[in-house]
């Protein structure tokens, strides 16, 4: 790129200057006539030629033009500019940092619980502020985690201070315990163990009970007359049966890291993710994101891209059967049947068809079946 400069040639006859310049093939731009000559922009390389050409005239260099001028100005005021950029950076960083976390509640236990929960979620002193959506998510997570202690939670960011307001959950235990209730079976089964804390046990071990049967009564009777009604409490374990069908493919795709890892950067705003650099992992990959900082709702992430290799595994019949049984056991647990132990299990039906295993399993488990049922 040619460097342009502004010069002034002092002369009483500007026409002759332009004619000479044209004759010599020198390019001139933005020519302006002044009272004592001509002002123009030329390429810096032509300055020597012009000085040689107009030996009798006064040729003054005025200033540099264009990008070079900007570059020189930046160079000249570099210290000031660096200072400004640094100040802006400091301002942005400080305005996005939390210097104090105030948990507003009288109960010090709740305060420490909330503070430690916030720290677990990445909200601590001298950490970057998060977006509104992230705070909302954290509030929901804390409320879920401490649902027996916290009724309501609010996070307010005022300047560099984060304020957390809490409404404690008050459990009205007295009301529930004073209301009369029975322990009833929530499913059918054979009684294995009874532990009565309050009330009268109406069933014995080895008794077959149906769903809805009263196991421990809250009514205390004398000569078939109800003398007092209380809320029965206790645990009743029974053998409960499940018959579950499942199907599982004989082949499974498993991926593992090859050891190749490349870094990348990502910006996220309103759940829209933009990867800054072109990915250098050409094959299959898995990505791990590490949040760097958050400014004006933009979240900056450091991305680790791991190259992975996918392998297809084909299971043998006994292997896939074991896997299916384990999956069924997990499924029973996931469906909130929190059984204590598996008493027995038996495969009722098993078939391999279309590269899939179809299995039907019978399970007998020891499970707590007693639940409170209030009555008037």
């Amino acid at each position: 790129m040619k460097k342009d400069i502004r010069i002034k040639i002092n002369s009483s006859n500007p026409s002759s200057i332009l004619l000479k310049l044209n004759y010599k093939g020198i390019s001139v731009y933005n020519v302006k006539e002044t009272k004592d000559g001509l002002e123009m922009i030329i390429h810096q390389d032509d300055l020597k030629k012009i000085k040689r050409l107009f030996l009798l005239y006064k040729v003054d260099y005025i200033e540099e033009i264009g990008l070079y001028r900007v570059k020189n100005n930046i160079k000249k005021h570099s210290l000031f500019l660096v200072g400004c950029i640094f100040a802006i950076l400091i301002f942005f960083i400080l305005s996005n940092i939390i210097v104090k976390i105030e948990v507003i509640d009288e109960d010090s236990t709740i305060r420490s619980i909330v503070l430690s929960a916030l720290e677990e979620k990445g909200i601590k002193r001298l950490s970057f502020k998060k977006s509104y959506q992230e705070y909302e998510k954290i509030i929901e997570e804390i409320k879920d985690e401490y649902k027996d202690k916290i009724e309501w939670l609010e996070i307010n960011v005022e300047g560099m201070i984060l304020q957390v307001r809490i409404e404690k959950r008050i459990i009205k235990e007295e009301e529930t315990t004073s209301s009369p209730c029975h322990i009833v079976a929530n499913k059918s089964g054979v009684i294995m163990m009874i532990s009565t804390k309050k009330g009268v046990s109406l069933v014995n071990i080895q008794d077959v009970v149906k769903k809805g049967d009263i196991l421990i009564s809250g009514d205390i009777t004398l000569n078939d007359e109800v003398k007092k009604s209380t809320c029965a409490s206790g645990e009743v374990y029974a053998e409960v049966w499940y018959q579950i069908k499942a199907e599982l493919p004989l082949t499974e795709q498993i991926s593992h890291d090859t050891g190749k890892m490349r870094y990348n950067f990502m910006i996220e705003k309103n759940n829209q993710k933009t990867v800054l650099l072109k990915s250098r992992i050409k094959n299959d990959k898995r990505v791990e994101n590490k949040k760097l900082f958050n400014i004006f709702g933009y979240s900056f992430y450091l991305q680790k891209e791991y190259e992975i290799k996918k392998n297809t595994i084909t299971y043998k019949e006994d292997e896939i059967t074991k896997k299916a049984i384990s999956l069924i056991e997990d499924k029973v647990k996931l469906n909130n049947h929190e059984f204590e132990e598996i008493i027995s299990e038996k495969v009722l039906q098993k078939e391999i068809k279309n590269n899939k295993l179809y299995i039907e399993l019978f399970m007998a488990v020891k499970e707590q079946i007693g639940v409170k049922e209030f009555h008037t």
Partner: protein
Amino acid sequence: MQIRDNLKNFLYDQEYYIDLYQDYIHLYDYEKLVSLSSTSIEIKFKSFLLKVKGQNLRIKNMDKKEMLIKGLIEEMRLYR
């Protein structure tokens, strides 16, 4: 052949052209500036001489191939 010539002309920009605006003349592919005053400018092209007459005429930009003249243009004449 005309298409070829037009294309060649478009791509190589070898032919001269003179653009006249409200108070500007833009010349391309001139050979030489012959004379210059505030009322008259003479420019030599390959096959003719262009005389521009007007008031307060002055050269704004000028390089080897192009020239931009500013002023109140009253007359343009070609001498072949």
